[in-house]
């Protein structure tokens, strides 16, 4: 259980004493100092800060939305809204015995294509390794890309998926949320699409507001003024 949450900026002393520094904090002498703008949390034996800004940091098994920005004869490079470019090897799509042929790669994925993908591997000595070989992954043929802050993704998902389900049910849209803050929305009706987009943008802008869920429900029901 975390207690004593505080708003912090880099350099703020969160606490001192025998705590283990976790994410976005650093030990200086006896003090635990925040290294990011965010909310600090003190646990029994550790301290961390949940950042409110910053790029997506790849984590193994995360679902992300990527955009193909280039390719060689052996792989595609994906923009995944991170400090590093995602690396998708040709074998992932063609299987182990593909032959190097530049044309073949662009027959499956071209520059500008969006994919739902998973982080297969990542350590800081090399670019994150991407895979699209599961059933729910692959090229995205339909929908609109909405970009939100990485830090707002948990709020968009909601407790046990409650927020995103509310949005999907209220609009009949299908929403794929990338942990990297990129979200794809598709819907049969233009109105449903527009409402779903608006709901997602509201979460991005008003995540800190207490009755956000009600505000969004009102908007979906058509009860808001805007």
């Amino acid at each position, binding site marked *: 259980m975390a207690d004593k949450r505080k708003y912090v900026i880099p350099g703020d002393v969160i606490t001192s004493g025998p705590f283990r520094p976790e994410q976005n904090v650093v030990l200086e002498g006896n003090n635990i100092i925040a290294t990011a703008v965010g909310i600090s949390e003190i646990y029994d034996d550790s301290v961390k800060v949940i950042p409110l800004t910053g790029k997506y940091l790849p984590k193994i098994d995360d679902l992300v939305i990527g*955009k*193909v*920005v280039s390719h060689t004869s052996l792989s595609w490079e994906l*923009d995944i809204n991170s400090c590093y470019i995602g690396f998708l090897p040709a074998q992932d799509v063609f299987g182990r015995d593909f032959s190097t042929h530049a044309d073949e790669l662009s027959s499956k994925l*071209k*520059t*500008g*294509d*969006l994919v739902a993908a998973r982080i297969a591997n990542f350590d800081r000595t090399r670019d994150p390794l991407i895979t699209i070989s599961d059933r729910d992954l692959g090229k*995205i043929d*339909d*929908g*609109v*890309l909405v970009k939100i802050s990485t830090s707002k993704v948990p709020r968009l998902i909601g407790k046990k998926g409650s927020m995103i389900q509310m949005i999907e049910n209220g609009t009949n849209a299908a929403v794929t949320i990338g942990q990297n803050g990129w979200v*794809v929305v598709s819907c049969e009706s233009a109105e449903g699409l527009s409402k779903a987009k608006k709901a997602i943008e509201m979460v991005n802008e008003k995540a800190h507001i207490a009755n956000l869920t009600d505000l969004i429900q009102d908007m979906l029901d058509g009860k808001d003024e805007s």
Partner: protein
Amino acid sequence: MTSVSVIDQLKRTQILELLEQGKRVDGRALDESREISIEINAIPKANGSARVYLGDTEVLCGVKIQPDKPFPDVGDKGMFMCTAELLPLSHPTVETGPPQAPVIELARVVDRGIRESHMVDVSQLVIEKDKSVVGVFADVVVIDYDGNLFDACSYAATAALLTSKTPTWEMVDDQPTVVEGGDKPLPVSTIPVSVTMGKIGNHIVVDPNGDEWDSMDSRITITTDSDGNIVALQKGGSDGFTQDEINQCGELSVKVGAKIREQLKSAQEESQ
């Protein structure tokens, strides 16, 4: 832009599909420009300045007016120069270093649009013939990019020049010296307005935003003056226009330009 931004294919498809229905992603009509917001005197210490927002594109122009030596053969004319620079903080793909061709083109097109309209009468900018003239420098910098820098930069430079105040100089001991209390508006004769149109598939759209700019095949920038004459023009991009399309663009530039001219006129009146 100096580098190619990779537009996501879904967006490009969406833009084309909507255009087939006569619509645009942000709800504008095909011949409608975005809301233009002009803030004059943004840099009070300059002789004139204007910050312009065109959608999310933000540019700033500062005008400096100062004595200078005339060009060798043109001792009876002052100097006018308009530059444009893409600041690296405006977009992740902007590189530092000497300007590349697209930015040089931008600067020269904006300069020509104003120069060819004779907005600033350089024959009125002489302090002493062959010895000392007035130099008017309109420097535009792009702060945030969302398409159509040609028009945004042009509006900022025009608004800044329209609202500039110039000192008066006289020669004292062979040196140009400021005359106390001699500040006056910069003498301008017309209000040039540029209108940029992009061609996406077979559709002409006025004031392409960032996504439309990345999707378009070619573009044309046409500048008109207060009399409705066309004074400058630049076609760019890697596709061609039919003659009918060129004529259509000419008409659009006059029509759309007239509306925007009203806004620039209000900014000028506000400053006086």
